[in-house]
């Protein structure tokens, strides 16, 4: 008995390690269903559709953020980047650009923002925290400037609005196209991170940058690529934000970067780099959305939600530390 007990515990921890974020999601869903008044509303197809749609923006951002955090970096400018790209998209539409041209230009703008972040971080060897903190202000200011300090409304007939529109709101299907896009991209980014050399270099750089350099990996180039790719995804998140509000709002998505970082960390990534997974981050994003949705259903005030989400993040990171210390011994 004595010899089998620690081995069992170790295996249990391995299971938690893999299934941790899933268990967290089930736990959150289970807690909200304790209330018999909320339960019938929570578990409807229509509500799940709302949850998924609310998840999309954080999820798409978390795809890029996962790459960045696994590589040992951080990006604090996401919220501002989303605001700027959504204002840009709206402005382009209002000025009569076609939907296709708007989409392409907005995505490129996102990629360009990421490229600048990456070039400054890799080129001058500056800490990503500082560079993107500065960028956060630059982009937010640019968004307000571009929008002339007010919202830019787009025509309600614009095709872009369908991206996040909830047709037949009481049923789960059809899901808005944005949800499918997010799921598809999650699969693509996950495969890139697991199956391509570029993806494995992201892990190598985050795990030990000096080693990566010794092994001939062109670390600066890889970093620029990571931030630029993530920027493209943040541009897409901006388009989704635009579609959801049907307007470009320069003050939108304040603090979004923290939601995204929280989703990635809840999903099992270490802020020190080297570990993390797309699947985990997606579940993390879902947990955040379920928490918000459930709190609304319970009729809790906004400040209660903020307190709860803050506590959840601390618990998630605490569990992660416990998990790692168990793995080592």
């Amino acid at each position: 008995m004595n010899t089998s007990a620690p081995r069992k515990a170790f295996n249990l921890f391995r299971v938690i390690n893999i299934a941790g974020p899933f268990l967290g999601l089930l736990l959150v869903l289970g807690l909200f269903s304790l209330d018999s008044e909320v339960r019938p509303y929570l578990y409807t197809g229509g509500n799940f559709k709302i949850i998924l749609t609310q998840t999309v923006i954080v999820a798409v951002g978390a795809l890029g953020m996962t790459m960045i955090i696994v590589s040992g970096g951080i990006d604090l400018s996401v919220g501002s980047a989303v605001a700027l790209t959504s204002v840009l998209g709206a402005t382009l539409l209002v000025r009569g650009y076609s939907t296709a041209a708007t989409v392409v230009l907005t995505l490129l703008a996102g990629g360009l923002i990421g490229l600048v972040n990456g070039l400054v971080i890799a080129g001058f060897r500056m800490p990503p925290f500082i560079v993107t903190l500065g960028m956060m202000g630059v982009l937010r200011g640019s968004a307000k400037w571009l929008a002339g300090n007010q919202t830019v409304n787009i025509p309600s007939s614009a095709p872009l609005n369908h991206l996040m529109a909830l047709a037949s709101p009481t049923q789960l299907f059809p899901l808005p196209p944005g949800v499918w896009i997010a799921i598809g991209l999650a699969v693509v980014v996950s495969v890139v991170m697991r199956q391509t050399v570029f993806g494995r270099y992201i892990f190598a750089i985050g795990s030990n940058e000096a080693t990566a350099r010794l092994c001939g990996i062109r670390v600066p180039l890889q970093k620029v690529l990571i931030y630029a790719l993530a920027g493209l995804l943040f541009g897409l998140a901006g388009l989704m934000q635009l579609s959801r509000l049907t307007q470009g709002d320069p003050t939108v998505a304040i603090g979004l970067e923290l939601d995204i970082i929280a989703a990635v960390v809840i999903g099992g990534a270490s802020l020190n780099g080297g570990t993390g997974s797309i699947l985990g981050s997606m579940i993390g994003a879902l947990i955040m959305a379920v928490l918000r949705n459930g709190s609304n259903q319970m009729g809790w005030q906004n400040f209660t939600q903020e307190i709860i989400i803050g506590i959840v993040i601390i618990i998630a990171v605490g569990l992660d530390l416990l998990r790692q210390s168990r793995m080592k011994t």
Partner: protein
Amino acid sequence: MAIFDELMDAATLIVPRLRMSAVRKSFGATRALKNVSFEVARGEVHVLIGENGAGKSTLMKILSGAHQPDAGAVELDGQPFVPANPLHARQSGVAMIYQELTLAPHLSVEENILLGEEPARCGWLNRSRRRQLAAQALAELHHQNIPLDAPVNSRSIAEQQIVEIARALIGQPKVVIMDEPTSSLTQADTENLFAIIGRLRKRGVSVIYISHFLEECQRIADRYTVLRDGESVATGDMAKASLPQIIQWMVGRAISEIYPRTPRQMGKPVLEWRALAGRSKPQAASLTLHEGEILGIAGLIGAGRTESLRACFGLDRIRGGVVLVRSSEATHRTPGQRLAGGMGLLSENRKAEGLMLNRSLADNLTLTRYGPLSRFGFIQNRRQRQAAQEWMDRLEVRAQDPGQSVNELSGGNQQKVALGRLLHHQASILLLDEPTRGIDVGSKAQIYKLMGQLAAQGKAIIFVSSYLPELLGICDTIGVMCRGVLSEVCPVAEWTENRIMAAAIGQSDPAAA
């Protein structure tokens, strides 16, 4: 054509695998390499010996492509060899194994072995091919037992080093350069490494081996080159060399006595452990340390020596036993209380724990005792610098200025700074954990001399070391730790290297071992 090929083969047998001639390299005003020349033949194990700062690391960086030489020639198989970066050097057949392990801790064994050279098509990983290559590399080292899927940080240090070597073997290198590979290995793992080096040599791979352990060099090397102050001062066959001669070349002067003995007398007991036990190690450690005594603790890595010192100093929890300081019970104390009581600990890991690397010498030296340097709680820079300068002079620290950052110093000088902090603190009980690890012979001799002087002043020293000659050379008494249990502490005259080794591996009687 056939004749031409044969001629070429004959030629490659004569042409040395690697030749450096009159290589020079300066950084600003510092001349790191003044004139270095040596040759390595195919299948030869060539050791580079020299103090820290003699230019070995600059030499390595030139061979690995991190730096380009200012003058002189480097040839690989008769062709000029000036690698532009580490990848280029590797592809040309020169692989490097660094002193500090350079693995990506979160990645698997397999991923680490092929890192940077993943078999891939259009950026798409070929996993089965990668697995095959990694397994092949481990098989060549006779270490198929290491699981390829395990995260590399879950393996032991020795296994991590095997992974590191396996990585160097990818791509059939012609020359493998090893920098202090045994500094973190146990005796058994060191033997294993030597066997691997033997197999590499049989395959015709040339090995350039850098080490401070002269006895070790003597065992495995065919030839040696001694570097001093950026110059190659001697080269020859290892079999014909004498150690005292090599040491003299290294330091440029004869060290008449590496292990000086100062006249000293043991006084009152100042520190006593009675069956000291920590969380998992030590299990039972008992000793009595007196004024003016240097008490050595020998043992294998992982035996619990470091843990004993840490528990005693209050860094780890004490689970059982009693600690007496100056004959009064003082078992559970914080490090702050220990320092206040005149005890000082020198960490075995000066980079991670012992020093604030990016702070100045002055800050590092005076950290634990600002009292005499400050007025009304404000530190007076002038007095701090003055105090630091005094210690730098006394300890012969080679640095420009007390304001210089510690990470610009060589390992030996860093260690002197770490030791200097204990002296500035006026500690009378010194717990020194591997104080001479990874530093050059000259600095070692200075540290031995200093320890002798301190003991003669009546200070009490516990000296943990894995290097038996130095323990036998400078200690008054020695105890051996094996699996968490400390043997009886006996006068040094009763110990021999064989007896210590036997006790360290758990054989009480050397005749039975």
